[in-house]
C-alpha cells in the first residue's frame, strides 16, 4: 500500500537473491521480459553477468590507449625538443636526437599515463566518487558487500509498474523485494 502512495518517489524495486546462479537467471529473464533500466549489485564480479544484463563492451580500453599515446608523444616530444631545439649539447659527438637513449623514459611515461587513464577512466565512467546513491537506503543493502546478490529494476524503466514489477521479481525467486526510496 505504501508502494502505491509513494509511487512518484520510489527509485526502484530491489530483489534479493542468495546465489550468483539465481541472480544470473533473474537478470536474463528480466531482460527477456523487456526491462532495460536495471542494475545488479554483487559482492564480487560474476562471470557472465555482463552478458546477462546486456552490457556492451566497455570503452575503457580506448581511454587507456589514448592515455598511452599521450604519454608516449609527450615524453618523446619533450626530450626531442629539449635535446635538439631548446638546449642542444654535443656529448661525445653523438647525434642530438639520439632516440635509442630516449626509449626508457618514453616507455615509462607511456605506462604511467596509460595506468592513470585506466584508473581515472574507470572511476569517471562509473561516476565515482559518489557519496550518495538511493540504493543505499534499502535496509539489507549492506549485504551486497558480503554475501547477497541484488537486482534492482529502476522506476524510470518504461515497463516499471510498482505492483507488476514487484510480482515479477517475486516470481523470479527473489527472497525479498523492497522498494528503494529516492
Amino acid at each position, binding site marked *: 500500500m505504501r508502494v502505491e502512495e509513494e509511487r512518484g518517489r520510489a527509485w526502484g524495486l530491489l530483489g534479493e537473491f542468495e546465489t550468483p546462479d539465481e541472480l544470473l537467471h533473474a537478470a536474463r529473464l528480466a531482460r527477456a521480459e523487456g526491462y532495460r*533500466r536495471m542494475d545488479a549489485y554483487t*559482492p564480487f564480479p560474476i562471470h557472465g553477468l*555482463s552478458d546477462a544484463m546486456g552490457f556492451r563492451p566497455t570503452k575503457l580500453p580506448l581511454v587507456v590507449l589514448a592515455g598511452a599515446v599521450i604519454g608516449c608523444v609527450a615524453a618523446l616530444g619533450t626530450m626531442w625538443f629539449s635535446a635538439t631545439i631548446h638546449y642542444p649539447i654535443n656529448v661525445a659527438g653523438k647525434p642530438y636526437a639520439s632516440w635509442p637513449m630516449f626509449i626508457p623514459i618514453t616507455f615509462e611515461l607511456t605506462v604511467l599515463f596509460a595506468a592513470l587513464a585506466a584508473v581515472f577512466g574507470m572511476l569517471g565512467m562509473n561516476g565515482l566518487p559518489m557519496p550518495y546513491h538511493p540504493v543505499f537506503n534499502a535496509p539489507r543493502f549492506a549485504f551486497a558487500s558480503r554475501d547477497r546478490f541484488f537486482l534492482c529494476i529502476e522506476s524510470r524503466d518504461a515497463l516499471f509498474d510498482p505492483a507488476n514489477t514487484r510480482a515479477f521479481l517475486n516470481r523470479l525467486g527473489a527472497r525479498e523485494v523492497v522498494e528503494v526510496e529516492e
Partner: protein
Amino acid sequence: MSDVAGSGRRRGGPPVIEPGHTYASVTDKISSIVLSRRTPLFWVLGFFVSFLLAMGLLVAVSYLFAKGLGIWGINQPVEWAFDIINFVWWIGIGHAGTLISAILLLLRQEWRTSINRFAEAMTLFAVACAGLFPLIHLGRPWLAYWLFPYPNTMALWPQWRSPLVWDVFAVGTYATVSFLFWFVGLIPDLATLRDRARRKGFQIFYGMLAMGWRGSALHWHRYEMAYLLLAGLATPLVISVHTVVSFDFAVGIIPGWHSTIFPPYFVAGAIYAGFAMVLLLSIPLRKVYGLEDFITLRHLQNMAKVMLATGLVVGYGYVMEAFMAWYSANPFEKYMIVNRMKGPYAPAYWALMLCNIVAPQFLWFKRVRSSPPALWAIALIVSIGMWLERFVIIVVSLHRDFLPSAWGMYRPTGWDWTTFVGTIGLFLALMFLFIRFLPMISIFEMRTLVPEARPLGKEAVPDDSVADEPEPA
C-alpha cells in the same frame, strides 16, 4: 560442484582455500582482523619496536642533512655504497608484489589471491624505503626537483641519456602504478568494511576511501577491465624498472659492472629477494592471525618453487660473471673476480655464495617446502644474501678498479647502519599499520574462490535474446 573442488586442489596438492568456507565466513574472518577493537599484544610490541627503529632513521637523516654526506663511510674511490646497495635491495624486494599481483593474474594463477594484497602493500612500502636513498644521497637533497623536466630560469633540462635520470622516471612510475593497482584492488573491500564497521569514525573513514562503491554490475564490468589492463601495464613495467636499475651499473665502465647479463640477472634477483620477503612476512602473519585456511601450504610451496627457480637464474649469473672474466681475457675483469674471491672483502663474496646458491638448494626437497619454519629460515638467509650481492657488486667493484694508486677501502659508519636499519623499521612500521587498518587479504577475490561462486553459467538458462540490445544508461 566436484570439478570446482578439483580446481582448488589441482593434482593432489594442498588447496588454495580450506574447504567449508562461504562468502560470509571469508568476509567476516578477514574484516574482523581490521574491525576488531582488540589490538593483539604482538601488534603493539612489533609496532613499538619498528617505530623506534624508524625514529632512528629520522635522527640519522636529520643529522645527515645538518652535517652532510661526510657522516657516511663513502669517499673516493667508493662514492656509492650503502645508499645505493639499500636502494637496489629495497626496490628488488618490491618486485615480488607486482609479480604476484600482475603477472600471476595474467597467468590465471588463482593461488595468488590470498597473498597479492599484502604483497602489493609490501611493494609500496619497499619502494618508499628505496626512493629515500637516492634522495638523501644527493649532496643537496632540497634540490631533488632538478631531476624533473620543468620550465626553469636556468633553461636547463635533465640529461636524458643518463640511466640515473631514467631511474627517476622508472621508480616514479613504478611507485605510482603500484599505488594505483593496490588502491583499485582495495576499493570493493573498503566498501565491505564501510558496511560492516560499527563505529562511526570507521564508517566515515572507510566510507570516504570506498568512494561510494556499491558493487554495481555495470561498475564491476568496467572495474574488471581496468584491473586487467593495469595488470597488463604493470607486467612490462616491473621488468623495465629493475632493468633500468641495472643500467645504473651496466652503462658504467667499471669492471664488474659493464656487463650485458645485468638486466635479466637483476630482474631474477629482484623476484628472488621479493619472494623471500613475502615468505618472511606471510609465515608469521598466517600463524598469528590464524589465516592458515587462506594462506595454505600450497601458497608457501609455490613461493618456495619460485624462489628456487629464480635462485638458480641468479646462480647462473654468478657463474657467468666468473666465466666471462676468464673468457674475455681482460686483465681488469680477471682481477675483479680474483679480488672478489680472495681480496679484502672475500668473506662477503663467499657468504653471498652460501646464502644465495647453497641455501636455496634445500628447496628441492618437499619436506623443506612444506615446513614453514624451514622456509622462513631460508627466506631470511636469501634476504641477507641478496643484500650481500649488491654489496659485492657495488663496493668490491669500486674499491679496486684500474689504477692501484687509486685503490681504497670502504667501511660503513654507525650512521650508515642506523639509516639502513631505520628503513627496515620504517618498512615494518608501515606494514604493521597496514595489517591493522586495511584488509591484508583481498576479500572480494577470496569470495570468488569459494566453491559456490562459480555459476553454472550459460547452460543454466538457455537464452539468446539478450546479446544485441543496447546497454542501460
